[in-house]
């Protein structure tokens, strides 16, 4: 029973990380129908940005965690947002009217390129980096299990940011522009919306969440490699599809389900943790084949 509860807690923490990434995935897909493979890399560069603040900004190491952590978060978010904006401007925007396969392959190229760029140019990044956690060592006991405080922080931030973005998109002027653009970019343009600006904004929001997720995730698992982005990116995409692509609450819920599948599957299904990835991909295939609109998605639209 303790094992089960512990695995559920682990699953929730993993789900929170994936959820923060999945929001970006689902928003970008919702607005320009692009599977942004490189979104996982935004998450990864965000984490490295946070690590860079810790390592290279003098004085950060001696600060209390409530000063150091926000600084690292800011560093991570700045890096991830910069990269996302550059990516949109130079890789995706020129291809907006290209055949469907072109942006997808570009995204693969961006993903590989970013991984390698970080590996080559970030000091020592060719092996896994240890991520500092000196300032949040606390373990919180909940009943019979213990959860690291970083894990609880991840869950709280994930839900809070998810709700905030949802609120922003539903209530604000730019949110309305975003929804309009995703429904029909041409008509939105006629109504005075600038689609380019809206699309950049979408990338930026996604990148903020991914950057935050990156720093918190690094702090939680304490190690960081350049391949972390790709794996978590695929998980996040699975979550977005599971929840119904384009739906924010769907992405977050989907992410928690995926987190559960991975930890519980690793614990209870044959093959153990070596096969936990496999179960996620099995879920992905089953969802895509039998319920492509996802759990929360609208009924299937005809897409070319």
């Amino acid at each position, binding site marked *: 029973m303790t094992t089960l509860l512990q695995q559920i807690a682990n699953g929730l923490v993993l789900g929170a990380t994936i959820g923060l990434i999945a929001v970006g995935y689902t928003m970008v897909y919702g607005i320009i129908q692009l599977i942004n493979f490189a979104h996982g890399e935004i998450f990864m560069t965000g984490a490295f940005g946070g690590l860079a603040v810790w390592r290279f900004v003098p004085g950060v190491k001696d600060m209390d965690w409530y000063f150091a952590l926000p600084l690292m978060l800011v560093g991570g978010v700045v890096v991830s947002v910069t990269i996302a904006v550059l990516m949109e401007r130079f890789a995706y925007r020129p291809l907006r009217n290209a055949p469907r396969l*072109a942006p997808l*392959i570009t995204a*693969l190229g961006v993903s*590989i390129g970013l991984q390698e760029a970080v590996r*080559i140019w970030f000091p020592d990044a060719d092996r896994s980096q240890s991520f500092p956690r000196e300032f949040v060592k606390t373990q919180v006991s909940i009943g019979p299990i213990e959860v690291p405080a970083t894990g609880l922080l991840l869950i709280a931030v994930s839900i809070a940011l998810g709700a905030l973005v949802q609120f922003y998109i539903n209530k604000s002027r730019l949110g309305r522009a975003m929804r309009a653009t995703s429904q029909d970019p041409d008509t939105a343009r006629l109504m005075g919306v600038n689609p380019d600006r809206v699309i950049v904004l979408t990338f930026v929001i996604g990148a903020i969440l991914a950057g935050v997720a990156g720093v918190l995730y690094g702090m939680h698992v304490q190690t960081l490699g350049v391949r972390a982005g790709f794996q978590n990116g695929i998980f996040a995409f699975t979550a977005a599809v599971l929840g119904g692509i384009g739906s924010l609450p769907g992405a977050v819920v989907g992410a928690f389900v995926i987190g559960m599948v991975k930890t519980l599957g690793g614990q209870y299904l044959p093959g153990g943790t070596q096969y936990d990835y496999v179960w996620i991909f*099995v879920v992905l295939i089953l969802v895509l084949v039998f319920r*492509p609109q996802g759990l929360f998605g609208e009924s299937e639209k005809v897409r070319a």
Partner: protein
Amino acid sequence: MSRLTAMVPRTLGRPLSAIGGLLLLIAALLPWATFVLNEGAYPEKSTLQFFDAPFELTGFRWHLLLFGVAALVVTFVPLPSKGRVLRAVGWGGLAISLVNAVFITSEGGGIGAITAADGNFAFGSIVGFIGGLALIFGSAGIGLAEIPRLPDLPRVVEYLVLLVAFAATLWLVSETLTAGGSAGVSSPYAGAVFLAFLGMAGGLLGALHGVGVTGWISQMSERHRAFSVIVLLVCAAALPFTSAGTQYWMNVAGTVGIYAATAIGLNIVVGLAGLLDLGYVAFMGIGAFVSANLSGAAAAKLGITLPFPVAAVIAAVIVGVFGVIVGSPTLRVRGDYLAIVTLAFGEIFTRSAQNNVGDLTGGANAIPSIPPIAVGGLQFNEPIDLFGTKLPSGVMYYFLITLLVALVMAVFANLKNSRIGRAWIAIREDEDVARAMGIKTGKMKILAFLTGSMLAGLAGAVFAHKLGTASYDAFTFLQSVTLLAAVILGGMGSIPGAVMGAALLFVLPEKLREFEDYRLLLFGLALILIMRFRPQGLVPDRLRRAEFAGETPDGKPIEEVEEQAVLEHEHELESSKGSKA
């Protein structure tokens, strides 16, 4: 660049081109490095002075000299499409100069290496670069006339021309393979030499294209298809007898051949049927593991040893079954979603193989010591004597793989021009319309996956035996992306494109060992740039090229043709009105 070149006035075209040609010629005769680089003289006779020994030029300086002379001649000779030729030569010269300038600068530790240092000067690369630029701008001034159509000739003469063309291709391939030698201690400058050679080859091909020779030859080879196929096969079989006939290059050529065959198989799925597959290499992997297990490898769980052909056929069939399974979601899933499903299948395969699923894949230990293919006592991994020439080991695999590529090409070409192939293309263009036209889209899509996967399985079986091991890390997501990139780089739906793409993507890493660390970075950048600037690929399929250029398949602009049609229609209407009145 095009905005800049558009500003060149007509009158400046010829003088600029002449200057460019002259500069290329001078650059070839100038010194290129102010001092001898640490790892040996580069380029050979790097400090050769102006006109010291004009006939002792070798390597890229010799090519540059030829380019310069050719540019000068073409500038003053009445040739209809000289602008195109000059542009190609200019880009070639520019590439050669740039590659060497960058390389000498980085190797020599500073800009002094290509300008002036210690009382020596070496402006070769800079002069060459400017010459290339001048040619590009000059060609813009001259203007890009339409590529001329060369005349049809009597049959025998055309056969001769084809023979010469294919022999030249063979020479170019063997030279390209061996340019710079194999990277490593013996030839530390392999990467630079090879890239410079590629620049030369690109310039040469572009110039030939500009004169209309390549189009002419491709039309001829289409007219005499059987003859060309035979000659091409003979040429491929002749490669071991050229300077590329060493064990090392036979190995590389064999590997490239296997990936080329797989890329053509992938081309069926992606290029013809338009189904993006991101886990294709898994089929190759399954083929490799199945054939390894059936051929009595030491670590194989099944204790049976079947002869290679039987094992290969069984492998292909089993892979085909997997192909149908992976393809079945296509019945319900489309486009990007399908890409993700195939990616998921690919990842499941990699994970399972890594964890030694069912003791069949050896996990991290791989399946070692798969026995080599043997036919009638002839072991394929041993050197052989043929026509009195001693051929290195690996050459038998090369021959086998050549046959495999030929087989895959034949399957592809026949399918493409059949009812099935047309159905695939229709599905690629618009699935709903294809269905409305009476094509059974579900059946056709599964068939595409079945064919593609079986070809990959066959290639995988040969791959495992050639390598002697089957390991999961040869079949990961990155390989899938590389294969896909090969197909796209070459041009979707085109056979020469797939072969060329595979050759480029799998030879380049061999050549650029010293840039090993940057290999994947460059690969990622290349993907982005290709999609940005040449999404139709290097050797696009005829129909697709027309589609991207907004032209009909015979090369007329679509708008013109449509206008023509409208005019004709109106004319008809008027004349019919007139006849009524």
